[in-house]
């Protein structure tokens, strides 16, 4: 990080405190930044959010452990809680006008990463909104009950894991069906927000500041609730999604035939391989849902990077893709996606085909939780939820 904006020193301070699990030092750094005339909003959006994004990047590069990742996140959350009680935040809340707009900020069901949404909620509070922060993984029925109960003006929905896009779509249409517009953000919607448009969101924001500006620009009318995506008529998504676990089994037995070394796998190695495959199938389903080969390609490129960082050749992913392609050859869109994925893996790594035999590490596969901050950070550090 360069010091061009004069904030990198603060980011470094917060980063070191967070990754060390030192909430005292972290809170001190944040409060000291405020004392140095850095505004609360800048602190939230340009110090805390990038530090959180960095947590994911560092895990991706295998420079911190899962424990450190979770600990750093917890420290950042405590910093946010401390900032929410700071006099600056209290004054903003006290100065709120009686007719201020009301916004519900929530993460889509299955979305565990609450930080970006929480930062947005704090920024909106600072800007005079009446904010209901519903937290991580909000099931759509809860969200809708909240919308009916409060009659909020707008819903801000954060999702960073692309595999949750179908759930996000359901939540968006359900909100719109109540006449409430939805602004979405987060890495799940793609670098340019293309999936937000596809799913009919009323607005998309690449980062927290844009989201706040967009909301300040005035009320958007809720779009027509519409959940029809014509490309789903080929039933490829339905097939892959409904039979995901059967597909994983098929791939697993195929791998055992193709790769003799698997016979000597421990139960745990076998389990992690199955998890890897399940993750590929989940992203395949998501890519089919939004009809975007790049989503699948990005996931595989990223996975290849994570594997490489841990000393595993990216080529280990290829047999699984081939087995899936054999199973799904009746579905042209699925075949095209798998071919695209194959090319992405080839481009990302060597052609070495020694799958998973010498795994040095039993935490190779990104679980969605780990994938999340990394996705947030990857190339677009300024997502609604990271920015």
């Amino acid at each position, binding site marked *: 990080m360069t010091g061009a904006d004069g904030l990198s020193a603060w980011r470094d301070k917060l980063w070191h405190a967070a990754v060390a*699990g030192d909430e005292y030092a972290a809170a001190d750094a944040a409060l000291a930044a405020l004392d140095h005339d850095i505004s609360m909003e800048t602190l939230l959006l340009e110090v805390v959010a990038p530090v959180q994004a960095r947590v994911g990047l560092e895990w991706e590069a295998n420079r911190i452990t899962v424990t450190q990742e979770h600990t750093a996140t*917890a420290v950042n959350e405590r910093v946010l809680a401390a900032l929410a009680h700071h006099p600056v935040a209290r004054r903003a809340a006290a100065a709120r006008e009686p007719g201020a707009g009301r916004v519900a900020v929530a993460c889509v069901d299955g979305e565990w990463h609450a930080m970006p949404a929480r930062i947005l909620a704090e920024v909106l509070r600072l800007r005079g909104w009446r904010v209901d922060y519903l937290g991580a993984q909000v099931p759509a029925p809860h969200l809708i009950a909240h919308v*009916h109960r409060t*009659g909020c003006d707008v819903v801000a929905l954060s999702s960073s894991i692309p595999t949750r896009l179908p759930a996000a779509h359901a939540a968006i249409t359900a909100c719109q069906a109540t*006449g409430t517009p939805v602004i979405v953000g987060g890495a799940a919607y793609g670098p340019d927000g293309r999936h937000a448009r596809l799913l009919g969101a009323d607005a998309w924001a690449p980062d927290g500041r844009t989201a706040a500006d967009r909301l300040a620009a005035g009320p958007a009318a809720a779009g027509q609730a519409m959940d029809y995506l014509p490309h789903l008529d080929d039933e490829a998504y339905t097939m892959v999604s409904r039979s995901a676990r059967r597909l*994983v089994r098929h791939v697993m037995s195929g791998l055992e035939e193709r790769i003799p070394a698997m016979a000597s796998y421990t139960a745990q190695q076998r389990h992690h391989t*199955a998890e890897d495959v399940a993750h590929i199938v989940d992203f395949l389903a998501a890519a089919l849902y939004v009809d975007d080969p790049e989503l699948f390609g990005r996931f595989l490129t990223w996975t290849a990077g994570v594997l490489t960082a841990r000393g595993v050749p990216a080529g280990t992913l290829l047999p699984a893709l081939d087995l899936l392609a054999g199973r799904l050859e009746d579905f042209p869109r699925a075949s095209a996606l798998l071919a695209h994925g194959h090319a992405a893996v080839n481009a990302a790594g060597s052609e070495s085909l020694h799958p998973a035999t010498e795994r040095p590490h039993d935490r190779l596969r990104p679980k969605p939780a780990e994938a999340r901050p990394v996705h947030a950070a990857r190339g677009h550090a300024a997502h609604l939820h990271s920015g």
Partner: protein
Amino acid sequence: MTDLTSRLGLDDTGSVWRGAPYPVLVVSAAGVIAQANDAALRLLPGAVPGAPLADAVPAWLSRAHAQVHDPAHDPVARDAAGTSARGPIGAATFEARPVRDGDAVAWWLTDATDLERATQALRVERERTAFLDRASSELLSSLNLDRCMEVTARLAARHLADAALVILPPARRRHPVAYCGPDGTVVREELVVDPESVPGLAEALQGYPPPPSRWICPAAAPGWLARDGHVEVGSMVVTALPGHGVPAGALVLLRGSGHARFSEGEEVFARLFAARAGAAMSAARLYAEQAGITETLMRELLPPRICDLHGVEVAARYRPSEHTARIGGDFYDIHPPAEPGQESLIVLGDVAGKGLEAAAVTGKIRHTLQALLPLAGDHQRVLELLNGALLTGGGHTRFVTLVLASIRCAGDRVRLRLTSAGHAPPLIIRTGGRVEEARTEGTLIGVLDHITSVTDTVVLDPGETCLLYTDGITEAMGGPLGDEMFGDQRLLEELRRCGGMPPEALAERVEMLSSQWVGGGDHDDMAVIAITAPRLAHLSAVGGHGRGGFTA
């Protein structure tokens, strides 16, 4: 080529043409009438040959004639046989069709009065149906009363009047009001006003049919109704918004003095709209009332907020089994010490079953334990009394397993007394990643007359955590292949990687691993509590602990 004029006038069809039942005018390019048959002269006595068309016929017809000859006019449309004009002649509506020959045009006129009337009626009906359809879908989409009022006022102002006002029966002497002016902006407010000041309004709010618009003097409208700078009221309609047996409110439509008064048909239509709006508002009110009741009754059953336990960090996660529910058969409670230096008590338990019925039992257990707090120094005694209360409680028999954790700070360390009553023993996560099971066991509660229990005492060094959890975590079914249980072993393996984590991160991680194991499938209630001895001095400024899970 034979000229049309001469052909019509001179050939042997002339008499047929003259007597034709339809009026026909032959007009030259210069706009002078060349011929008119008998029917035309009866309709337009001035349309004698030689008279300028503009003097003899209404303006719409002479305009149409000019257009037929206008080179700028679309030649395709001009030459099309179907080109026709329509307009009034006297009280009737006529359709005029031109037939060209050279420069002259023969205008054939047909009486289209009935057609016009039917077309007009059809258009109005279509517009009204479309409006009611749109209104219904907009009104039905929301179960929020304020929003329903806004939608009603906006739709009424846009489609039925210049301005509209929705007023509800008073709540605490104030009438909720939504007003929409000609600019389409809705203002919502609560007003102390006298409905008697508006003719018909008090009746409408009581469900009586209000008087027809023509009996209401618009000058009687008070300022909160006829707002300055918006509309100078020329006419006004008051309509009841019918509700579920009782009136939902009233709708007042205002039209400016420059516009036509409300017709009887419009008043009837306003009532049709009001019926839909009233139904939607009543449903919204009913929903709000029911949601309020549920909220009030459920408040006691929701997991409590995490409170400060003076030198001990606590984090909790809670996820009920049903997506639509916020409560279930798992529960926890956190009782801070009555006085500083005394023990805190944390309880985590699991009532057999799930859903509302199990949740109701958790309420009873939590209340009983609250009453037994003074005895918390003796876990066995507390459990015996709780067991007795459940056994004698009668009604449906449900049993419960639970863990009691009494907590006291001892310098930087935290001392815990842990007692399991038929529940999975707590797990202790040491700093280095070693995971121990607390050596406590006991009988589940609510089944046997006599129960036994063994209490374990555990000391946490700074950074170490005691984890209490329900079997919804370990018995989660799923995994990559879909048919495996998450299991104790996997939980232990994961926890070994969690040494030194803050309690929020640890509790979240456990809940997350189990939830993701399940994937999109069904799961049981899940509850997790992490009790941690702070790694560093406690940061009291950081008090922003929320409720567990998404129940906030």
